[in-house]
C-alpha cells in the first residue's frame, strides 16, 4: 500500500489536503479560517483531478504542428473540469466572504459559536 501511495504521490497529497480542509471547514470556529479550509478542500480536489488527467511524458492538449495522435497529448477532460470547478469555487468564496463581512459588522466577531449565541440573544430581547 505504501509503495502504491508513493507512486500516486499527487493523489496522496491531494487527499491529505482534502481531509485537512474538510475538517477546518467543519470544525474550526473562526469564519475566515473556515473559508480557508473550504478553499484548501476545493484546491485539493482540483489537484486530484489534474493529476488524474496527466500521462507521463505527454504534452498539454494544444495541437502543435498538426499532430493529432492520442499518444501525443494528455487527457483534456480533467483540465476542463478543473477550469469549471475553479469558477464555482471563486463564486462560493466571494459569497462566503461577503456574508462574513456583514456578520462581522453586526456582531463584531468572527467566531461562529459566538455569532450564533449573539444572534439568539438579539432575537430574545
Amino acid at each position, binding site marked *: 500500500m505504501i509503495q502504491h501511495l508513493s507512486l500516486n504521490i499527487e493523489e496522496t497529497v491531494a487527499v491529505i489536503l482534502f481531509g485537512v480542509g*474538510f475538517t477546518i*471547514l467543519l470544525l474550526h470556529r473562526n469564519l475566515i479560517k473556515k473559508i480557508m479550509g473550504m478553499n484548501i478542500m*476545493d484546491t485539493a480536489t482540483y489537484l486530484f*483531478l489534474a493529476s488524474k488527467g496527466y500521462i507521463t511524458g505527454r504534452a498539454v492538449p494544444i495541437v502543435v504542428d498538426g499532430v493529432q495522435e492520442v499518444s501525443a497529448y494528455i487527457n483534456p477532460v480533467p483540465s476542463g473540469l478543473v477550469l469549471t470547478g475553479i469558477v464555482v469555487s471563486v463564486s462560493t468564496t466571494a459569497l*462566503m466572504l461577503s*456574508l462574513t463581512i*456583514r*456578520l462581522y459588522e453586526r456582531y463584531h466577531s468572527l467566531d461562529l459559536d459566538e*455569532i450564533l449565541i449573539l444572534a439568539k440573544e438579539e432575537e430574545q430581547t
Partner: protein
Amino acid sequence: MSFVQNFPFFSIILAMFSGIISSVLSGKKARNLSLVMIAVTTALSAGTLLFCLRTGESYPYMMGHFPAPWGNEIRAGILEGVTAVFFGVVMFLAVLGGLDHTAEDVEENKLNLFYIMIDLMLSSLLALVYTNDLFTAYVFVEINTIAGCGLIMIRQKGRSMSAAIRYMIMSQLGSGLFLIGLSILYDITGHLLMSPAKESVAALAASGAYRIPMLVIMAVVGVGLAIKSGLYPFHYWIPDTYGYATPTASAVLSGLVSKGYIFLLIKIFYRVLGYDNLVSSQMVNVLYVFGITGMVMGSLHAIHETDTRRMTAYSSVAQIGYIYMGIGLGTQYGMVAAVFHIFTHSATKALLFISAVGLYEASGDKKDYVSLRGAGYRNPLAGIGFTVGSLSMVGFPMLSGFISKLLFATSALESPHKMLPTLIVLAVSTTLNAVYFLRLVITLYSRRRPEDAPIPEVKVRSSWHLRLAILCFIAVNLVLGMWSQPIVQAIADGLAMFG
C-alpha cells in the same frame, strides 16, 4: 424528432434567461416575469410528461452536436416529467402565496434580485431533474446552493444571516464530498455521462475490480447529498434556515431544494451506480438506519420547540428521514414510496409554511404557541390550510400523507428483515407527529384566555394571492390523497425506465 421533445431544454433555458433578464428589470416586472415563466415552464414540463406517457419510453436529448459519451446530454422520462411538473406547481404557489411578505422583507430596490434567485433556483432544479451528466449535476447543485443561500439571507433581519452562513458551510461540505466522489468515479470509469458510466460500473462490478473505490464513491456521494438535503445527523442547519427566511424562501427551501438533491441521489443510484450494487454493498442499510433515527429524533426535537416555524422545520427533518428510510428499504416498492413521499412532503410542507403566514398575520407576527391561540378563528382559511397540512403530515385518510404512510407500510412488508423496525418506527413517528401537530391545531382553535397578552390591531383578511395559494395547495394535497393510483403507477413506470 418531434418538437415536444425540445421542451425540457426550453424550460431550463427559459428559466435561466428570465433570471438573466431580471437583473435589469424593476422588482415588480421581475416578479411578474418570474410568475409567467414558472407557469410556462410548468406547462412545458406537462407537455413533456404527456409525450412520455403517450410513447411510453424515455429519450435522451443532446445538448449540442455530439452524441452520448462526448457531449452533454439531458434525459426526459415519465418520472422526470412528473417531478418537473410538480416542482413547477409548488414553486408557483409558494411564490404566489408569499408575494406580500417578500415585498415587506426585501428592500424594494433588491426585489428583482430575489426573483433572479427564484428563476435560477427553478432552472437548477429542472436541470437536476433532467440531467444525464454527472458534472452538469455538480454545477447545477452549486447554482442551487448559492440561490438557496441568497433566498435565506435576502431577508437581512434577525438570525437569517447566521442561518445563511451555517447553510453555506454545510452545503459546501456536501459539495466537496460530492465532487471528490465524482472525481474518483471519473478516474475508474472514464465517463461523466450517466449511461456510459453505468455500463462501465456494471462491467467493473462483474469483474470485481476496484471494489474499494466503488464503495467509497457510494458512501461519499451518498453522504454529500445527504448533508445537503438535511438527513438526521447532518440536520443542524435546517431549523435556523427554514425558521428565519421569508415565507416563500422557507416553502421553496423545505419543499423543493432538499427534494431536488434527493431526486438527484436516486437518479445517481439508479442510473450510475446501479441499485443492485448498492443493495449488495450494504450502503442502503446505512441510509435506512440514518432514516429511521431521523424519523424519531426530528419529531422529538419538534416537540421541544415553542416557535411554530422552527417546529415545522424540525418536522422536515423527520420527513426527510421517511424518504431515506424508503430508499434504504432496498426494494422497488420502498423506492416508489420514497418518491411519492417527496411529492407529499413538498406539497404539505409548502402548504404549512404558506398558511402559517396567514396565522401570523392574524396574531401580530408572533410565532409562539400562546400568541397563536385562537388564530384559527381570526383567519379561517389559513387555519383550515394549516389543519389540512397537519392532518396530512399525521396521516389522516383522504390526504396525501396517509397514502405515503400506507405505501411505506406495505413496502416494509416486502423486506422481511426490515419489516418490524420499519413498522414500529412508523407507528412511533406517527404518534409523535400527532402530538406536536395536533397540539398546534388545538391551540389554533382554542379560545384566548383573559391573561393572554392582547393582540394588536391586525388585518384579518389576507390578500387574495395568499388565499388562492392556500386553496390550491389544499387541492393538491387532496388530489395526491384521493387520486394517488395513477401517480403511484407513473412513479413505478418512471423508476422502471431508470432501469
